[in-house]
């Protein structure tokens, strides 16, 4: 058994160089285990969408391989893609057709879908994203949020083993964002593997089990959320002439990874409030000469990995 078959999504040295010469994706090795909710992070223009297009067989890789649900892509598209729901680079529908007819069109295009249950599938998908009331409205009259919902409904037309969602909450209001997040949690809970791309860390942080970070076409980090948290975790740094005692206090408070590091001690802050830690130290008669919190979580790690916030890579 190859590595690929044990994973929902796997790539080996996946590379895309466009005819313009631009190297959009540069030898990435994605590993998405079955059942994972994989946050695919990176600033705009970092190569996420190009990668997703290659995974779905829309673009041919310049080099490297990609496999989706154990099928090589793009060769295995006919076998893999009916089991995959996708939202790629925003929703796209026929403007003069209603939401209902747009979904019927996509359902009719699926040769594995039986006609007899088409209306049930479309109704179910529209219900799921809260568009039932707007089903008969032409797509051109949909708001940005409704369009995004229809795109998600299309991905959910059939039960899927894998969902690949590119920026699914784009254009949604906070209420809609929460609904989509709830939907993803529900789907993931039922065992669906989800690949969720975003340029917003906060969006994926709450739902993901795994994270991959793209920067200028390269996958600069890939880990479980917990593993990444550990790398980006805030640490309490205590300066004191009595490091051993300080370390004992930190340990007693339940802080993880306590390290004696003269002249002081450090530990992972975790959920503890800094002021409580200081109070405990003082209470234990530890002479505190310095106290600070270093590193401020994933956001800082994300920025340090990508070297920028929300700027577009040229």
């Amino acid at each position, binding site marked *: 058994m190859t590595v690929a078959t044990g994973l929902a999504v796997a790539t080996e040295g996946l590379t895309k160089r466009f005819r313009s010469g631009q190297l959009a994706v540069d030898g990435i090795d994605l590993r998405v285990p079955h059942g994972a909710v994989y946050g695919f992070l990176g600033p705009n223009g970092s190569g996420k969408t190009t990668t997703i*297009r290659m995974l*779905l*067989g*829309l*673009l*041919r890789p310049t080099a490297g391989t990609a496999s989706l649900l154990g099928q090589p892509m793009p060769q295995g*598209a*006919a*076998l893999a*893609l*009916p*089991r*995959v729901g*996708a939202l*790629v*680079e*925003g*929703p*796209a*529908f*026929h*403007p*003069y*057709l209603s939401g209902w*007819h747009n979904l*019927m*069109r*996509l359902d*009719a*295009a*699926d*040769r*594995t*879908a*039986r*006609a*007899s*249950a088409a209306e*049930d*599938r479309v109704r*179910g998908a529209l219900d799921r994203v809260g568009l039932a009331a707007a089903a008969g409205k032409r797509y051109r009259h949909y708001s940005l949020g409704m369009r995004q919902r229809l795109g998600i409904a*299309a991905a959910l037309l*059939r*039960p899927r*083993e894998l969902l690949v969602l590119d920026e699914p909450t784009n254009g949604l209001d906070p209420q809609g964002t929460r609904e989509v997040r709830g939907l993803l949690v529900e789907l993931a809970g039922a065992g669906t593997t989800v690949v969720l791309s975003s340029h917003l860390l906060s969006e994926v942080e709450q739902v993901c089990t795994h994270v991959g970070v793209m920067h200028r076409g390269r996958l600069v980090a890939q880990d479980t959320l917990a593993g990444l948290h550990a790398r980006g975790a805030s640490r309490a740094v205590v300066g004191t002439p009595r490091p051993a005692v300080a370390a004992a206090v930190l340990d007693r408070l339940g802080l993880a990874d306590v390290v004696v590091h003269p002249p002081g001690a450090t530990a992972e802050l975790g959920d503890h409030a800094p002021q409580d830690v200081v109070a405990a130290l003082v209470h234990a008669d530890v002479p505190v000469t310095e106290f600070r919190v270093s590193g401020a979580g994933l956001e800082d790690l994300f920025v340090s990995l990508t070297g920028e916030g929300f700027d577009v890579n040229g």
Partner: protein
Amino acid sequence: MSTADVALAPGPDEAAALPEPGRAPGAFGRFFRSELWLIFGRRRNWAGGLVLASVPLLIAVVVKVSGSGGGDTFVFAEITHNGLFVALAALTVELPFFLPIAVSAIAGDAVAGEANLGTLRYLLVTPVDRARLVLVKLGGITLFTLAATVLIAVVGAAAGLALFGGGTFTTLSGTSLGFAAGLGRLALVCGYLTLCLTGLGAVGLFISTLTEQPIGAGITLLALTVVSQILDQLSQVAAIHPYLPTHFWLDYAEVLRDPLDVGALGPGAASALAYVAIFTAAAWARFSTADVSA
């Protein structure tokens, strides 16, 4: 009841079942019908149909009001004797430009329109096999072409029969045909022109795979049609005339001879079929490996 029966029985559970890799019965037909719905459900195309249908009405009314002119060509001169000739006259005047415009609009839209809207990527990840998409698009173009031709013929025949009646159907050979035979000849003309225009549509389908701009693809096809007709007028390039897509179009007039020699339509039919085969294959070859980045 065997397990196979259970698995095949349609029911509410079906919507919840995970997709099977197998093909559902009638899947191609269903996709094709959705393509027709896309073409025939679009208001723009109905507006185009109105323009096509207005020409036979215009001809019928003008001839009714003013009578036949002295310098009229055969089909126009025959209108007052048999209303079916309104249909033939309308097809004759719409063939060089109006019908190619209609075909260009639809064929240019075929792949480029879906790419332009972004719906192409969602069709492909559904997944729709690319060869299947090319065939469905070609089928859509063919049926639209047939509909456009028949629309002109039906409106022309109806208006003509209402205003001029269904009298003697005179052939180019000078003989007379019965009403049913005349109607049969008109149907044959429609069939032949549909085939010719589908050849043009296949060229448009190919152009449509080269761009994401449906209007650009349509205008390119229309320009090619006009250039082909111009070249066909230049005796200096007579050697290439048989290869021009529009060269055999006017052969439909052969249908108006008596006795009927269907073989006279052979070269035109062969040319159109060759255009369909070559350019559908070219469209597939180009599209099957194309990067879809729209």
